[in-house]
């Protein structure tokens, strides 16, 4: 069978180009949601313009590949830039910026002759295979519809106007589907499912939000029950009673630079608690006092009477804009451009307002005496079901007859001699029995057991105590030249009040830190390096925090310049003109470039117009006297030969016409 005569209506399952206006609409939605409206308008107009203009740029496959690579590089730079500035939270920022990264490819597609991007431009693996790749994977595809959907998802990262966004994005999706609908169905049978889809998906998206709320409540309850202590100034749930092995991550949470060697371990408290009840330490309603910034030094002074005797430069990773800061007991001042507001509570919490991610600040301390907050009645209360247990221990240690200093020493010695450190709890007891079993049976536990038991025992002996949580500073990194505090350095201890002062006391065996360090992963140095790089690049670096890190933006300039250069160096092709050009070249082959035409035009203007169907020689004879016409007729003869004789020597003919023309 001869394939020329065979009519085959092959179905090509390929994406169509977006209809006029759809790209602009989706970009406007994106720009509106993400506050890039100005750029969105420019990009949208540029992408829609090819519908109205005729010229195109002739891109070779290699050019498109290079542009795709350029898009990839731009996206990579944007990703690094965003990651560096926003850390993992930056994923949404990257999502927000995606339409920028891919607009180059879209422009290349819309302004090119091909009206599609070959899959080899998008996937290096296909490109490597060249033309040998199977047609299943190597084909031209129009990326405008995927770009529109990308704009929609990207717009969603703006997270604004919940319901308006739903209806706007539905409108764009419906518009897209209108162009893609199966034409054999009536409009009614298309509108019916569309109406169903919009209604049900509206309910579904509301359902999803409710589902998340409920799931969060459920899982947060679960985490609160089994997770490690949280840094809530009102409440701290301990893992007392939790089974299994306690494991905290190696993540670096705090970096401390000191101009002198520290006497480690140094305790950085986050907050203290006074009430203990079934594994949870809490405080009555805590009110924070806002500290005013001193206008002269631009610092927050926690104690106006004292001057700093030393300071630390600290960098901390904040997960929330409002966070409790780990600080030493003798903190005096805080300063740094990253801090927005500083508050303190009577329980020793220092709360700051700052941006999320790595921030740095300077912490001044004073070795002089502070004015202390007096203990409250809560600092002496022991939960009812533990009262007998602690009474027994206190009697055994004869604490009731000793002076406060003796009590402190006895208790310290008691825990040192009789208890050992363990991060594993395998035995299950009934609720409210864990501390009892710790005291009388197991005699092992982690810092929360020690701190809680010590605090309650001292209370039994009449000394007010508070349970304190924070970090123990103990690891010095020689190559980073700073102290590193990791999540696993989180610790709890207590403070007791005697002689009008609060004192720190830690009865946890000092083996706790090496034991928890033993669990560190072999990847720790690698993660440390990553963390260090991130900390260095984010500009939160201590000492250089006044410098901007926007230098990365400058990398984009040479790239953009390269792109513009590529565009302007390409041969621009006018599609309309091309058609005419093709027509012209076809005629030129028959001698349309004959030098006689300008002369004929002049004659036409000066003498008389040539009639329709009139030959050149007839026309000349009509308009000119015979003597003069002779010269022209010779010229016309030559011209006719040049134009119509297929075997004549064209170059020679043209030359002869020119020579004769000069004479005429």
């Amino acid at each position, binding site marked *: 069978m001869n394939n020329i005569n065979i009519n085959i209506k092959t179905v090509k399952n390929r994406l169509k180009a977006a209809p006029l206006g759809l790209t602009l609409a989706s970009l406007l939605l994106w720009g509106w949601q993400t506050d890039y409206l100005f750029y969105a308008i420019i990009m949208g107009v540029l992408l829609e313009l090819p519908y109205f203009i005729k010229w195109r740029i002739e891109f070779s496959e290699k050019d498109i590949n290079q542009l795709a690579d350029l898009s990839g590089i731009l996206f990579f730079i944007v990703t690094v830039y965003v990651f560096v500035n926003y850390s993992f939270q930056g994923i949404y920022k990257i999502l927000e910026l995606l339409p920028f990264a891919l607009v180059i490819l879209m422009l290349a597609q819309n302004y090119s002759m091909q009206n599609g991007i070959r899959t080899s431009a998008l996937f290096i693996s296909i490109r490597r295979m060249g033309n040998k790749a199977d047609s299943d994977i190597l084909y031209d595809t129009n990326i405008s519809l995927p770009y529109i959907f990308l704009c929609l998802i990207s717009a969603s990262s703006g997270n604004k106007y919940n319901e308006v966004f739903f209806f706007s994005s539905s409108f764009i999706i419906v518009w897209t589907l209108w162009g893609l609908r199966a034409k054999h169905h009536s409009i009614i049978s298309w509108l019916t499912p569309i109406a169903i889809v919009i209604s049900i*998906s509206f309910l579904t998206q509301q359902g999803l939000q409710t589902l998340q709320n409920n799931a969060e409540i459920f899982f947060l309850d679960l985490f609160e029950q089994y997770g490690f202590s949280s840094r809530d100034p009102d409440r701290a749930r301990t893992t007392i009673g939790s089974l299994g092995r306690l494991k905290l991550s190696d993540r670096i949470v705090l970096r401390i630079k000191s101009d002198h060697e520290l006497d480690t371990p140094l305790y950085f408290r986050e907050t203290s608690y006074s009430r203990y009840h079934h594994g949870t330490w809490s405080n009555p309603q805590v009110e924070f006092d806002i500290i005013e910034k001193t206008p002269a030094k631009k610092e927050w002074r926690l104690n106006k009477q004292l001057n700093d005797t030393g300071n630390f430069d600290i960098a901390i990773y904040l997960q929330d804009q409002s966070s409790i800061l780990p600080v030493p007991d003798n903190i005096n001042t805080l300063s740094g451009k990253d801090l927005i507001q500083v508050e303190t509570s009577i329980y020793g919490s220092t709360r700051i307002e700052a941006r999320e991610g790595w921030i740095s600040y300077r912490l001044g301390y004073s070795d002089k005496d502070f004015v202390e907050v007096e203990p409250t009645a809560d600092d002496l209360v022991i939960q009812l079901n533990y009262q007998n247990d602690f009474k027994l221990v206190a009697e055994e240690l004869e604490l009731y007859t000793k002076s406060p200093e003796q009590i402190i020493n006895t208790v310290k010695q008691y825990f040192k001699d009789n208890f050992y450190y363990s991060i594993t709890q395998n035995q299950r007891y009934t609720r409210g029995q864990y501390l009892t079993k710790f005291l009388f049976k197991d005699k092992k536990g982690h810092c929360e057991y020690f701190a809680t038991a010590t605090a309650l025992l001292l209370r039994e002996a009449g000394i007010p105590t508070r349970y304190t949580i924070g970090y123990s500073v103990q690891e010095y990194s020689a190559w980073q030249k700073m102290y590193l505090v990791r999540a696993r350095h989180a610790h709890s201890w207590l403070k007791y009040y005697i002689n009008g002062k609060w004192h720190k006391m830690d009865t946890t065996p000092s083996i706790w830190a090496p034991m928890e360090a033993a669990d560190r992963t072999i990847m720790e140095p690698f993660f440390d390096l990553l963390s260090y790089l991130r900390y260095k690049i984010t500009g939160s670096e201590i000492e250089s925090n006044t410098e901007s890190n926007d230098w990365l933006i400058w990398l984009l300039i040479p790239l953009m310049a390269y792109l513009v250069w590529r565009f302007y160096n390409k041969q621009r092709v006018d599609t309309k003109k091309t058609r005419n050009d093709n027509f012209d070249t076809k005629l030129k082959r028959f001698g349309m470039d004959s030098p006689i035409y300008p002369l004929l035009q002049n004659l036409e203007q000066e003498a008389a117009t040539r009639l329709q169907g009139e030959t050149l020689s007839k026309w000349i004879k009509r308009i000119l006297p015979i003597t003069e016409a002779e010269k022209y007729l010779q010229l016309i003869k030559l011209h006719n030969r040049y134009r119509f004789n297929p075997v004549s020597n064209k170059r020679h003919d043209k030359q002869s016409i020119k020579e004769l023309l000069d004479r005429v």
Partner: protein
Amino acid sequence: MLRRLLFANFKLVYKLSQWMRQRFTAAGMLILLTMPVAGVFGFDTRSTLSFQIFSITLILLITSISFSLLFRGKFSIDRKLPDYGTVGTALYYSCAIKNNNKKPRKGLVLIDDLNSPFPTLDEFIHAKDPLDKIRNRVDRIMGYPRLMNTIRKLRGAAIAPVSIDYIAENSETEENIKLIPLRRGYLYFEKIRLAQADPLGLFQAQKIFKKKDKLLILPKLYKTPTLNTHGKRTYQQGGINNASSIGDSQEFISLRDYRPGDPIRSIHWKSFAKTNHLVVKEYNDEFFIRYGLILDTWLDDKSEDIFEDAISIAASFMTAQKEQDALLDLMFIGNNTYRFTSGRGLGGTENIMEVLACIKPVYESNIKSMEVMLNEYMHECSALICILLDLDKPRQRLLRTLASYNVPIKVLIISDTEKLEIVYIPHLTDINVIHHDRLQQDLDVLS
């Protein structure tokens, strides 16, 4: 172990991707891909509004699939296949579709399905793909593209779906379908699907018609030189019987060029006078030329491309042989020893081509069996063409044995490498290398 695990996963992935490709339109695929992306970014409904896009796309797909269930109708389909096809050359056939409904039907798509058995684990492990050289390391190690290639080869052809715009009620339409065979052998047609997209244009409802058929795809043919070896005519035992369909022993058949050994009395002097070439009168006789063509099937670890080339060259020789007086024996070793004879009215070209279309390579050496077969054959053979896949030591030994029979031998070695070393074999001068990339040029040089 890893291969087994990969294989099991690939099977699942392949089946899923096939289902998606057959069921979803391009727009449907776009929605299907948008849904998980929106789902991932919208997982936290407080961080982005992407969950709204997830909801819309999810409900769109569910609605589309539900609406596709409404596709009903009675149709009958008949496939009309040609007799043969050739590897790499598009062939066209038609399908007659009858709409047995009381209403006309629009927007149907006809998808003809070839049986594509999923490769066995053994086939997956031993599969070779020349494109692996230019694939990236991950693809090479994982082997999914290689597996796809194996499936494509097993299926044997690619058939693009065809759209049927309109069929009137109770009437029939005939649609042409294009098929490009990728390999020789039989193609097995299994079923025909009639699909129609749902109103949203995302998902295709399908009706499946079981229609089993088979179509023989012949190997690719090349222009080959005429066999003009200097072999003598040899006495063929039972030769007359072999050539029984031509006629009596001394019946004149035609004139042809003189060959050494032809009796002088059969020279046609008139023609000699005219042409200055010795021309003989040809009679049907038990003395005639018998060519042998040995096809090497021991592929070992070499590329399948060169085996295909060898088959094509053998097929080209078998079809190009026009001489009526000569017998041509095709010999190869597959599971058994095979010998097929054509020429002088015996076994038509069609049969030989069918045999060649279905030969499969052998992965264990069979050169010794070939030697045994040829030892018996050489006495009745006038000339021999050996199509070999290599010139390694076993094959050199075979050629040395064959050379000792003093029968003209033309050796063609198919190779895809430039480094093939031609060793000297006593009494054997006609050794030619046919390179995979310039097959026709190398064949042209032979003449």
